[in-house]
């Protein structure tokens, strides 16, 4: 058994890598970049394209978007895997991971203005000792933070000036009259351009050269600051993340889900906000589905062929065929609308003024009845839960009915009846127990779907759950958020499948792991 589970868990790793790889490639291949996400979240407000270009360049630099897709994927995988290789990241007091800064990229066409790129010198030991004294103390932390700040500023300045070089290069190429050096997206093909000799007589060249030299100087500064930061990191000013296994080679750390582009907030925070909402609704909805669908199916099975069976079947199938969108609109239009029933709140999960209410229902200060916080919460949950529940009866109750009918015809039931076992005992002890098997597996496969949330229900009742989070992430091409979401659902799915197999074996002794 342990052997089997271990094998399955190990098999999960390549499966997960495969899933995330496909999703990552899909996102990378989809048209439109992250710039759109930035503009959308600005509410369509006007701002200069130049500013967006600089902002985009910075984001690209921070997330390494200017590198080949496969490298980006590797980088993402490194962050997400709990097993880390190489030196451990540091954890800053605010909980952010500080990893070794990436090399500063080369500026475009630098060969036109310089013969070689100046390499930054590592800091001498005396210099390190002078700058980063007492790592871990407050002064040490401050010195390190200053180094981080200087590096970020220098790198940002370099990225900005590099973006200007590319802009100028584009103008230069247009003036030069060599459109073949531009890509379909009107970006200069830097590597191809570097191989040709420039026409230094053009008047656009002067500006390009000036900007190019600026960028070279900015790069040198950034590289220098990077060396200082690396030297600072080596003194370990912050505690290290995770647990070390082999120092400097292997360590374990919790996965880092990154920061969502579109909202500029850590993905983990966004998930932590959305997940409880979705789970709350689903954890209420699913017991209700089971408690109604299973007895309903049993009833239909025991009264097979009678009007009870027919009515039960008809009802669940009819409910199943009502689309959630329609049900939501009907609920809003009749159950909520004060012109009709006026029975339920319109949106959200918390009522106006419910923070001021007492916990339990009762009389308030003005001697009027008040529903209280708890009841208010339940009242707000009724319609969303209803919309999630009604369509779920059909499959489960039909499944129950079919499984029970199959067992009714089995030999052991006939034997039990022949022995004189009461009808009730036959149904509950023998038939029902044996019919539970498919229901267990079904629950386990339904559970991961709960995490994904229901887009329609969340939209109609303004519930900020997982469904709306994922849809928004996809619309804005928010890579980190989409990946975190799919990874989470994939992991839970794989675990649930494993759980299903284990439960199957536990419930049915005939199944073994051999």
């Amino acid at each position, binding site marked *: 058994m342990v052997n089997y589970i271990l094998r399955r868990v190990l098999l999960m790793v390549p499966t997960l890598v495969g899933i995330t790889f496909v999703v990552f490639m899909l996102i990378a291949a989809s048209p439109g970049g992250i710039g759109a996400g930035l503009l959308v979240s600005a509410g369509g407000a006007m701002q200069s394209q130049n500013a967006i270009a600089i902002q985009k360049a910075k984001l690209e630099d921070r997330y390494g978007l200017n590198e080949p897709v496969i490298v980006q994927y590797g980088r993402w995988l490194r962050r997400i895997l709990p097993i880390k290789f190489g030196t451990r990241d540091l954890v800053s007091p*605010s909980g952010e991971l500080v990893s070794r800064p990436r090399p500063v990229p080369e500026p475009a066409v630098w060969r036109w203005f310089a013969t070689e790129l100046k390499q930054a010198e590592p800091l001498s030991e005396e210099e390190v000792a002078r700058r980063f004294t007492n790592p871990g103390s407050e002064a040490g932390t401050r010195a390190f933070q200053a180094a981080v700040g200087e590096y970020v500023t220098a790198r940002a300045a370099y990225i900005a000036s590099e973006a200007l070089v590319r802009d100028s290069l584009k103008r230069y190429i247009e003036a030069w009259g060599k459109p073949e050096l531009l890509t379909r997206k009107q970006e200069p093909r830097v590597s191809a351009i570097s191989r040709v000799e420039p026409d230094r007589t053009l008047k656009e060249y002067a500006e390009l050269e000036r900007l190019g030299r600026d960028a070279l100087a900015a790069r040198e500064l950034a590289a220098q600051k990077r060396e200082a930061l690396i030297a600072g990191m080596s003194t370990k000013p912050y505690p290290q993340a995770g647990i070390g296994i082999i120092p400097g080679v292997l360590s374990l750390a919790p996965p880092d889900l990154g920061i969502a582009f579109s909202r500029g907030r850590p993905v983990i925070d966004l998930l932590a906000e959305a997940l409880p909402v979705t789970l709350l609704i689903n954890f209420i909805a699913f017991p209700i589905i089971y408690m109604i669908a299973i007895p309903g199916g049993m009833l239909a099975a025991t009264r097979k062929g009678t009007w009870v069976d027919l009515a039960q079947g008809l009802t669940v199938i009819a409910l199943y065929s009502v689309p959630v969108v329609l049900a939501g609109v009907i609920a809003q239009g009749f159950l909520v609308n004060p012109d009709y029933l006026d029975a339920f709140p319109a949106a959200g999960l918390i009522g106006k003024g419910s923070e001021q209410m007492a916990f339990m229902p009762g009389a308030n200060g003005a001697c009027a009845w008040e529903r209280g916080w708890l009841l208010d919460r339940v009242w707000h949950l009724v319609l969303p839960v209803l919309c999630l529940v009604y369509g779920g009866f059909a499959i489960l109750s039909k499944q129950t009915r079919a499984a029970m009918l199959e067992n009714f015809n089995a030999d052991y039931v006939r034997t039990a009846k022949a022995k004189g076992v009461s009808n009730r005992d036959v149904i509950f002890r023998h038939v029902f127990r044996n019919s539970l098997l498919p229901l267990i597996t079904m629950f386990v496969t339904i559970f991961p779907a709960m995490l994904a949330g229901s887009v329609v229900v969340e939209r109609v*009742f303004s519930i900020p759950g997982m469904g709306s989070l994922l849809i928004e992430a996809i619309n804005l091409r928010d890579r980190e958020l989409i990946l975190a979401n799919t990874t989470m659902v994939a992991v839970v799915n794989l675990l649930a499948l494993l759980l299903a197999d284990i439960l199957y074996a536990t419930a049915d002794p005939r199944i073994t792991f051999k």
Partner: protein
Amino acid sequence: MQNRFGLKDFVLFVLVGVLALSIWMRMFQQDREWRKSESVLSKLSSLESQVARLENKLDTGVVVAGGSGPSSTSGPAPTDGKPAANGGSGGDSSWARPGVKIEWQPPWGPATDPFKQPGVQVGGEFTEVYEAQMARLTPFIASDVYARRLHEFVFSTLAVYDPVTLKMRGQLAEAWQVDPNGLWLRARLRPGLRFSDGKPLTAEDIRWTFHEFMMNEEIEAERSRSIYRDCIAKVTPIDDRTVDFEFKERLFTNVDNALGLFVLPKHIYSQFSPADINRGTGLMVGSGPFRLRDVDPNRQWAPPADVVLERNEQYWGPKPPLATIRFKSIQDETARLNAFKRGDADMITPASTQFVTLSGDPEWKDRARFLNWVNMRSGYSFIAWNCGERAGKLTPFHDKRVRLAMTYMLDREKMIRDIWSGVGQVAKGNQPLGSPGSNQSIQPWPYDLAKSRQLLKEAGWEDRNGDGLIEDARGNAFEWEFSFASGGEIALKIANFVKDSAAVVGIRVKLRPADWSVYQDFMKLRDFDSITLGWGASSPESDPRQIFHSDAIKNQGDNFAQWKNEEADRLIDEGRREMDAAKRGQIWQRLEAVLHEDQPYTFIRVPPWLRLVNPEVKNVNPYPKGLEHPEFFRGGSQSPKPAN
């Protein structure tokens, strides 16, 4: 079969579960009580400091009427400009740079004083519903429009646009001087300004906000930074109440940008590291008439919750009547209307159809106030014609006559009737209606098919083979692609309307819906024949350079229509450097006339703001600037509360 799971076990399990649940609920309830008492305590400490300040003032003696601040000893010395009517140092101009006109500002107060209205009551809550969820509230970092609207109530700026006249009116500033060459601005703060925690607001806070918060590369305020980076070079505090702004170049937007900078309290924000600020969702402490209710940095406001602002009891200006303002988000439009009907919301933005149906319903006469007005944030929607090359080939729209024919072809009034239920008016140009730049002599081109056909014929497009479609001399049929962002119902309706209208004059239109991020690429690469879009605005006057100047064709600028007009370029360059608002208005009027003649855009509609307002909420005035929440008060059926 010995240890079978029986009914007894089941009951036991359920009991344990219920017990665990009730313990958890009890703890939850404890938490609620805790939070409640904490908020009471913070309110109490705020009151205490207020009382202390009052006592202090009483001890030092009160000056009755006229009001004279710390500089009263120097005596009134009105030199130039008119002295302020009150507000302390009326006329003292020792702070000013000599020889430059001082623009004295009237005392700060609401445009329509709620305390002069009949039936004014203090207290009560006002709930407004937004269509989208705000992601975060931290100033300069929050990027959505809703959060920015809310900032106006929580933060103060040196000056704000007057709701009625749309001219800059001093809020924190009692006076300022603008360099006639447009290279600097010096502002004088009013006396007695303070943040919502009672600490004084000084010129140093302004410098800190600009240089160490907004321009700090580590803070993710790139959006604001990109606007201010090109405009303000340096902010220098001269003394506690005087601050100097240095500009990079002579540009008319500089003054508004400098005066419109939110002032953050240095003593609060400097406690946080940039990482804390980037990560935070609700770090919002300012000096406006309202303050965020949950200011504890360890338990910040975070998205699904409503944003609740409460009256800032430490406010330095006239305090607002409302006790709290609550902002909810409801995405579904039916749900929004239901929330309004149920009384869960006092103000919603209805869909056009809802607005038209309900405002015609006599039953609704007393249930809501219907507001429908155009204001400075309205903007306009348009169809842009690609006047340049697409993939190396000129589009048919490079010809001005064809563009004009397109405008004649579209019955925009019918469009507004069909698509927006008749809400809104036909746009005539890029300038906000009623602004100094808006050219009154321009009327939108009428709907005239004959004229359209004639113009097309002049441009060489007519039906040469009798198939009902028009062709050029070489027999190529007039056919173009209409690109629009998919997902929105409105854009699809516009596209279909254009397609049908074009068919009437014999043009075939292919619809090309695209996802928003792909649509962005169309614009950047000029890979379209025509697209539809809307421009929004956040101020009464905006710089037309990035949309209409031919320089903005390069570098993927916002002149995606690739419209090149020397006259327009000249006017834009001239207007941007004109510091006098009236003269600038003249220039923008001429620019609008050029746009009207040349039609790089077919202007479709100016969308008005629509609001349904609970009639219990009084003093809701639709201003040219928008809405002024600090003026609202609840009257009517509410039980009166003691005024304080």
